[in-house]
């Protein structure tokens, strides 16, 4: 009986198809693939040119790296190529509630696509992940406080207020929005998912906040909660449990739970 339940669950999981989308220069697709594979799903690493139909998948993930050499701006070329190939399909995919996630360069791509913070549908970005104030690539462990009250489907398995260690590795991670009141809106809408903190759990400046992002913001979601981006790499801290038992795995578990219940 027990075996049957476990087997049944396993089969359901293996039916979940995750598209790990890449182009030239993405370099975190293997880690992202493994994160989902270890949880029993059927991920695929798909080059944008080879993607037939986004609706063949239950989840779209854009991994980190230096897509198209970070030319023009980090993530801008990948975003424009996605827009050229499947802008309408992607909007439909999101409107139907399927999850779309971006880590590091993937977050930059989602911002360049105008999907984050996504206050309204636009063909151009309404935010920017700009050069770190230190003007250099910041590569080290960072501490993140989970801020979402439950909107973000990628972090529902993580209690609010928990702190997790997730490594950062980026040169452009400082979140900028056009107006100060846009940040108020982010907080009001429960779109702020992760913020950088120090070891006491308090919002602190550089080096705790590696890029000097406003309000220490490290990750945000859209208004519906199904598009999510963060600069640090949970797929690289998949097994690294903190004292509270939370590791990067929780993010991938959360989104799978959402898909299973959808």
């Amino acid at each position, binding site marked *: 009986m027990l075996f049957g339940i476990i087997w049944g669950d396993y089969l359901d999981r293996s039916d979940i198809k995750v598209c790990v989308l890449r182009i030239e220069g993405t370099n975190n697709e293997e880690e992202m693939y493994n994160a989902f594979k270890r949880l029993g799903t059927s991920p695929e690493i798909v080059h944008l040119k080879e993607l037939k139909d986004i609706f063949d998948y239950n989840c779209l993930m854009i991994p980190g790296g230096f897509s198209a050499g970070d030319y023009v701006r980090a993530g*801008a070329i990948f975003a*424009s190529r996605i827009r050229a190939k499947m802008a309408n399909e992607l909007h439909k995919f999101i409107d139907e509630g399927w999850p779309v996630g971006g880590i590091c360069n993937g977050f930059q791509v989602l911002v360049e696509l105008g999907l984050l913070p996504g206050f309204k549908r636009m063909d151009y970005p309404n*935010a920017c992940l*700009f050069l770190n*104030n230190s003007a250099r690539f910041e590569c080290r462990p960072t501490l993140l406080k989970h801020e979402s009250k439950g909107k973000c489907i990628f972090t529902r398995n993580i209690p609010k207020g928990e702190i997790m260690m997730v490594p950062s590795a980026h040169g452009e991670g400082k979140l*900028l929005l056009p107006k100060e009141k846009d940040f108020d809106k982010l907080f009001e809408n429960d779109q702020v998912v992760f913020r950088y903190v120090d070891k006491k759990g308090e919002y602190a400046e550089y080096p705790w906040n590696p890029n000097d992002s406003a309000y220490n913001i490290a990750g945000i979601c859209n208004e519906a909660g199904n598009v999510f981006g963060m600069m640090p790499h949970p797929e690289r801290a998949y097994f690294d449990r903190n004292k509270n038992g939370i590791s990067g795995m929780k993010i991938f578990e959360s989104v799978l739970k959402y898909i299973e219940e959808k």
Partner: protein
Amino acid sequence: MSYLKVEVKVGLKEGITDPEGLNIKKSLKLLGFESIENIEVKRSYVIELSGKDEKQIKENVEMMCKKLLVNPVIHDYKVEMIK
């Protein structure tokens, strides 16, 4: 076939801190160029387009800026025909 050249200059909006410019300024000062007050880093794209209609070409380039070359949150830009 006739073509026209257009230059797009992309710079940062006022008030946006430019870590790249600050870093270059620091390095040049270390090389002894003490008089530097400020450095703005700008990017220039020189685009050759087929066609003769300047107005249409300019509109076309404006669209290129909106769709890829510029992030309106941080950038100002200028489109100029190169004679």
